């Protein structure tokens, strides 16, 4: 793997790590497996691409964030007001978003924006062609991570975390769990859409299927990061999401350099997530067998 490929992987990893951060909010903090993610990522890419094509890349990112927040709100609304199961609520929104994403892109399945200026070409002009993209990605992720760490320690952030940690305690502590769920899902999906929007401008291309499997990829990143950093505190959890996002892209780049068929990458992601999620149960089972064996020997 050449240095250029590695740098590209780090740049993409930083951008994709926003999805891992989003899942840190929805999955780790609120304890909701939010499948809206897949649709929201593509929504962000679509919004960003159409505005970039028309010469407004920054506005495109703002629209991506707003669109993502609305998508998150719809999922949360289905859950909190009508009691739809969280997973099902996410699937419903995601399915609806597929059509909306096509509409946003002018009823085309993909939208190349090769010639239009975007935030990364701006950055290359400011910081130089060599590291412009990397610097911009780093700055965005650093600002968002710092803001997230701060937010999760505020009164509202604490309430959000408690909502995922012990729901029965929350309403007895004058916190509105429906409001917290809504806030968390809006925030998470805004981040996911921003990630999609940045990716569209980074690769100068948006596609309606861009988000497929994104929730699994995000989870894989999060879990990889947690292997290295853990998640004992908010700071560690956020750092783990960012680091995991980067490592995941480096693994993918290495796999591609090693001539692994790109079609197999999603399978690899799925296996990583499945193994990581099953790991605690497997360990508990092994411990039980060992204990039983030890007990029989006595």
């Amino acid at each position, binding site marked *: 793997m050449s240095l250029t490929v590695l740098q590209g992987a780090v740049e993409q990893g930083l951008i994709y790590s926003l999805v891992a951060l989003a899942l840190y909010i929805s999955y780790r903090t609120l304890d909701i497996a939010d499948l809206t993610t897949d649709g929201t990522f593509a929504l962000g890419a679509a919004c960003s691409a159409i505005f970039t094509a028309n010469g407004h890349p920054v506005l495109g990112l703002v629209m991506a964030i707003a669109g993502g927040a609305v998508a998150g709100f719809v999922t949360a609304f289905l859950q909190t007001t009508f009691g739809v199961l969280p997973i099902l609520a996410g699937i419903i929104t995601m399915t609806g978003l597929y059509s909306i994403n096509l509409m946003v892109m002018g009823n085309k399945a993909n939208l190349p924006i090769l010639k239009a200026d975007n935030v990364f070409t701006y950055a290359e002009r400011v910081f130089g062609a060599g590291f412009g993209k990397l610097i911009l990605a780093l700055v965005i992720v650093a600002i968002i991570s710092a803001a997230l760490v701060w937010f999760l320690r*505020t009164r509202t952030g604490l309430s959000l975390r408690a909502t995922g940690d012990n729901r029965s305690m929350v309403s007895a502590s004058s916190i509105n769990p429906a409001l917290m769920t809504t806030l968390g899902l809006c925030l998470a999906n805004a981040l996911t859409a921003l990630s999609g929007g940045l990716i569209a401008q980074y690769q100068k291309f948006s596609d309606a299927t861009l988000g497929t499997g994104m929730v699994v990829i995000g989870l894989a990143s999060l879990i990889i990061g947690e292997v290295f950093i853990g998640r004992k505190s908010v700071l560690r959890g956020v750092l783990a999401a960012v680091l995991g996002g980067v490592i995941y892209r480096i693994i993918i780049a290495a796999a591609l350099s090693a001539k692994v068929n790109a079609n197999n990458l999603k399978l690899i992601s799925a296996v990583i997530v499945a193994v990581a999620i099953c790991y605690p149960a497997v360990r508990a089972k092994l411990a039980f067998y060992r204990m039983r064996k030890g007990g029989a020997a006595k």
Partner: protein
Amino acid sequence: MSKMLEINGISKTFFPGTANAKKAIENFSMTLEAGDFVTLIGSNGAGKSTLFNAIAGVYYPDNGKIFLDGKDITFLPEYKRSSQIGRMFQDPVAGTAPHMTIEENLALAYLRSVKGANPFMTITKKDKAFFKEKLAELGLGLEDRLTMPVGLLSGGQRQALTLLMATLVTPKLLLLDEHTAALDPATAEKVLELTRKIVAENKITCMMVTHNITNALELGNRTMMMHGGSVAFELTDAERKNMTVEQLLKLFKEKTSTALDTDRILFS
């Protein structure tokens, strides 16, 4: 003295209109003066928990009214009234967030109703000092473990912490639903002692459900026996002071012509 809690003829029927319809409380009325500490006893299904849940807003009564400090709270959502009503449950796990630290749990309880609260305030050094001081009063050594996740504490420690959280900002009403029933006798005694101390020091208006008749007669200034969704009888002043467990069981039999189901009643 002013009325802190006033309940006017509330009723609650579960599964109305079906074969399983159950009248949990029926035309129930009571008044608590500010500073009253009433202990509630009664068999399973007497309506104690339903009464608590109606006061706390977990469910709304079918009819009747509930006033807290003169304000009608009958249909106020649970999360809105909980800034004024502290609550503790039997299950030590119910009242705290296990993956958050002691400090963060206390902050949740404190920042919600402290003066000048805003959604983005964080824990200050002054808050930390205040938490430490309050934790030290529990006498469990928790003041040196502010950054420890609450999930690592024992049941008794968690229940003591929950008690502190419920009273950190003095509530208008404290509801204790068998909050020591899941603890071992020594720990239960300690948590009860803390309850007595904190309630007395802050003059909190308090209701406590218990299955321990001795405790019910010792703590507080009123004892209420519930049966079939309403009050069977109430003891105050001298009558309460001179009451023994045996007499109380006899009185219950006379008033309701049923025997109290003593399987869960401890009269240590």
